[in-house]
């Protein structure tokens, strides 16, 4: 087990922000920590990296983070939620500085700049880079020194669709390379595509821990499609109501509203088009994480 967290608790004064979280990530597996703002995702990640003091136990490849933090962090590549570098250092200097800290060869720093697609900006101060470029540099820095664990705190935050797809590819590539990956997100849509396992936190408490696919079966990663069809199209409504991938089909004004799992929305639309229904306009709303957590809790209450 590359990452093992046992009963991790963190308090700030009298406020408990993390209440007994557990994690176990093997090589080549991805765990997503899911939760709304203030759920304790970043705190759990900071505990795993050893950036904050905590109760409980975290080991990275068997090395205790609290006792041998430096040795544990040699195995970790970490990208914070908002990557911050020394703005006056150039991209090249930044890569070299972190390569030295990680005792990685100089060539690795040069390769980092190339892999991040920042060769043209190598002489620029980091402060002059765009947010996306800084994110790529942070990912490159995290992968310096060939870590066995990659930790990404809200990597998808603020990314456009293209960048999010790029991020999914990167996570998949690192998983293929055998890294254990821990990432936090409040974007449920990404979870089935990037994660094998999920840990859902709400106000520091674990409300779900298990396979990411298990989350999809609860409909938590739901999407809501708003379709403007040509006329009322009762045939289309029948088609949608008969589609096992779609549920809660409603008609609202000129819009037809359909709920489905995030990963199935393309198939739902495809089925309509294949049946000759013309779609004049559409928009998609992803289920907000707090609503999903609420639903998960109510499902759990129903089960108990």
């Amino acid at each position: 087990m590359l990452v093992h967290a046992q009963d991790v608790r963190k308090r700030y004064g009298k406020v408990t922000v993390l209440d007994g979280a557990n994690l176990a990530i093997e090589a080549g597996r991805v765990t997503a920590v899911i939760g709304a703002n203030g759920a304790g995702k970043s705190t759990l990640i900071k505990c795993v990296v050893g950036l904050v003091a905590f109760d409980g136990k975290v080991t990275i490849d068997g090395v205790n983070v609290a006792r041998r933090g430096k040795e544990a962090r040699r195995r970790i590549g970490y990208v914070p939620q908002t990557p911050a570098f020394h703005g006056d250092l150039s991209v090249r200097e930044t890569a070299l500085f972190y390569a030295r800290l990680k005792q990685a060869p100089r060539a690795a720093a040069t390769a980092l700049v190339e892999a991040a697609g920042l060769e043209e900006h190598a002489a620029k101060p980091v402060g002059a880079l765009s947010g996306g470029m800084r994110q790529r540099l942070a990912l490159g820095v995290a992968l310096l020194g060939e870590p066995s664990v990659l930790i990404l705190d809200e990597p998808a935050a603020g990314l456009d669709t293209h960048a999010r797809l790029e991020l999914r590819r990167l996570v998949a590539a690192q998983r293929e390379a055998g890294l254990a990956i821990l990432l936090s997100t409040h974007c449920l849509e990404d979870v089935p595509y990037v994660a094998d396992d999920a840990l859902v936190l709400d106000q520091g408490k674990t409300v779900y821990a298990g396979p990411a696919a298990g989350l999809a079966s609860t409909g938590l990663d739901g999407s809501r499609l708003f379709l403007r069809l040509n006329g009322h199209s009762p045939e289309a409504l029948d088609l949608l109501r008969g589609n096992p991938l779609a549920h809660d089909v409603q008609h609202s004004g000129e819009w037809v509203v359909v709920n489905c799992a995030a990963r199935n929305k393309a198939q739902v639309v495809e089925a309509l088009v294949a049946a000759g229904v013309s779609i004049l306009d559409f928009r998609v709303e992803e289920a907000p994480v707090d609503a999903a957590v609420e639903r998960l809790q109510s499902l759990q209450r129903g089960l108990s």
Partner: protein
Amino acid sequence: MNGVTTIATKELRDALRSRWLFAFAVTFAAVALLLSRVQADAGDVSAQGFNRTTAGLINLCLLLVPMLSLILGASAIAGERERGTMATLLAQPISPAELLVGKYVGLTVAVWGAIAMGFGSAGLLVALFAPLTDVEHYLLFVVLSAALASATLSIGMLVSVLADSRVKALGGAMLLWFVLVLLYDLGAIGLALALSSSGRTLLAVSLANPVESVRLLAVMSLERDLDVLGPLGAYLTERVGTGTSTLLLVGGVVIWTVAPLAVAVRRFGRQDA
């Protein structure tokens, strides 16, 4: 290259890029030139050129070196926190102690460099107007200034670790500078004299302030007769002895260098990034 060396090298490079150290060196050289010009105009060039310039530079050094060092030290950790770079740094395979010590070493070498440049250029300028006598006093004062920089940087680092923002750290540093450099003579020493004018009390009060300790060491190196120090001078000469006094004062500066840094390392290691 280990963590301490990497951080120290970066800190040194940052310091060299900043305008503070350059301004410090230029100020020193300019004041030294002014002092030697004044002496030359007064027809007092021949005899004790370096000695007099050294004496003239003491007060300037006691003002500027602690100010520069306290400010640089206070910015070191609080600045990283404010920029958000602290978490990135501490997520690397480096311990908080290595980060702090690396920053201290880098800043210390940078300030030593500035002192050497300031005194070096000042020395060259003075040598144009005065014979090369008493150079050893001049060099000794360079060493004393470097020691004062080490101690006040250490205090500045502790302030930086304890403060929760850069503004508060800088405010704390300036307040400390005011107390250690300006208020101490009037306040602590005045109070000590009012309570007990014994040399022992005055020595204890002097040891409690690295600026005062360095001032005494500088005076002791320049003046054979310590009457200029009043009852403290008499106590140091007659009761303690010059050698023991020197050891005590040097020991005081060393403690002021090591102790705040040790406390800072301990506190920093327990703080959340």
